[in-house]
């Protein structure tokens, strides 16, 4: 369980150093997106309005307050990633290096992360109070008609801890832990 501090954008070497079970803290920028954002990007094929090369994309729909034409954070956390599993490939093809969320991704996404040299970073689900304080500012918002499922750009400092749930070597800690847990309870007779 090594600990890393990463500054975005991420490059291949930074990602390849990480192993499932490691802990990561992030400085720099994180992009927020969710179901509706990804549907617009990839099902509707609307061009992505910003460069996501080396980006960390976080599954989130923040609570915000509008002040003039700007948005100020109220509560920013994360959501269950498996709902957005099928968008893993398209995101990686845009150059995204890390997908962050909670609950992990499935087998096919694990293989895609290995192929494109990306990782999945698990936040501690439900810890929005801490995460909100680690987000310094909402720097940009695109597609506000999808509120709260817009494309967000957050500037972060000491953002974490994020746990490497899936590394670029095909290890998926979520699926491994669950399979082992099911085996154990079956062995107990359940």
């Amino acid at each position, binding site marked *: 369980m090594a600990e890393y501090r990463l500054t975005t954008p991420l490059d291949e070497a930074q990602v390849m150093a990480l192993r499932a079970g490691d802990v990561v803290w992030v400085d720099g920028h994180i992009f927020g997106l969710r179901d509706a954002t990804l549907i617009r990007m990839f099902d509707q094929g609307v061009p992505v309005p910003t460069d996501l090369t080396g980006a960390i994309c976080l599954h989130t729909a923040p609570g915000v307050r509008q002040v003039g034409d700007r948005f100020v954070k109220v509560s920013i956390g994360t959501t269950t990633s498996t709902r957005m599993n099928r968008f893993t490939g398209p995101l990686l093809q845009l150059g995204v290096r890390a997908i962050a969320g909670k609950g992990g991704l499935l087998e096919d996404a694990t293989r895609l992360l290995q192929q494109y040299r990306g990782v999945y970073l698990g936040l501690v*689900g439900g810890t*929005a109070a801490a995460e909100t*304080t680690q987000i310094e500012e909402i720097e940009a918002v695109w597609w506000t008609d999808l509120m709260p499922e817009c494309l967000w750009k957050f500037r972060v400092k000491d953002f974490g801890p994020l746990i490497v749930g899936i590394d670029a070597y095909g290890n998926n800690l979520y699926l491994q832990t669950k399979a082992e*847990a099911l085996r154990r309870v079956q062995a107990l007779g359940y």
Partner: protein
Amino acid sequence: MERGWPLEQYEAVTEAVAHLYVKALKDLPPDVRAALEAARSRESSGVGRTILQTIERNIAIADEQSLLICQDTGTPVYFVEVGEESGCNPIRLERAIREGTERATREHPLRSSVVSPISRQNRQTNTGYRVPVIHWEFVAGSPNVEILVIPKGSGSENMSYFRMLLPADGVAGVKRFVVESVVGSGGNPCPPVIVGVGLGGSADLCMLLAKKAIARPCGSINPDPEVAGLEQELLEAINQSGLGPMGLGGATTALAVHVEHAATHISQNPVAVNIQCWAARRGRLTIGPEGEMAIGY
């Protein structure tokens, strides 16, 4: 109160419900805090400890800075008990609860997570057709009204299960279903969780019992010794799985298992599972016969 609540009383309750909703989202009940602390102190997995420490730090930050514990402000679910002698008109009370929920959403402001199941349209109020969900009970002889709010997060609500088992599957079948449902949910419901189990009744009652079970204080024990034994056994089995915090391995997958039961039909063996995440938010408003209000958990 012979003639019933004055109209101002409903306005006061609307305001109190708005306050209650936000308070519940910021201030985790002491029983849940204690269970999380106990889980952290016995956790031996490094990743598990990191997660439980982060949860505790998160709760402390929410306390200090008056922030929401989790960004998912949930589906508003209320359990309301109206005392026979309270003088409360439930139709007006229902309106007050709805308006209080909307007021909290607008004034805090809170993210609205409630949409139409067909158009997916969000009114930005955290309410909609038949939502808030309100479960009513009427209590003979009581002068009080009690409003319990559960802002129910979706990561855990999505991990809800129901099955009509056969009588021949017995309690063994029930246990297997519960354990497999919880462990099979992996990290999605944000473990460590409170597991609510409904046993018996009709299909609708069974699911409601599971929801009542998660609404109990964390770690409370069913007064029926047979049911209490089942709670204990299920808790041990689920934790022996090693699924752990966030499904990444460790000693505590569940903080508690609560079972609520009801009589059922001779040819049925219904079981329901409703999971509550570690952010097991709960707020209680008690209104006395003179209109005096107390807020608790």
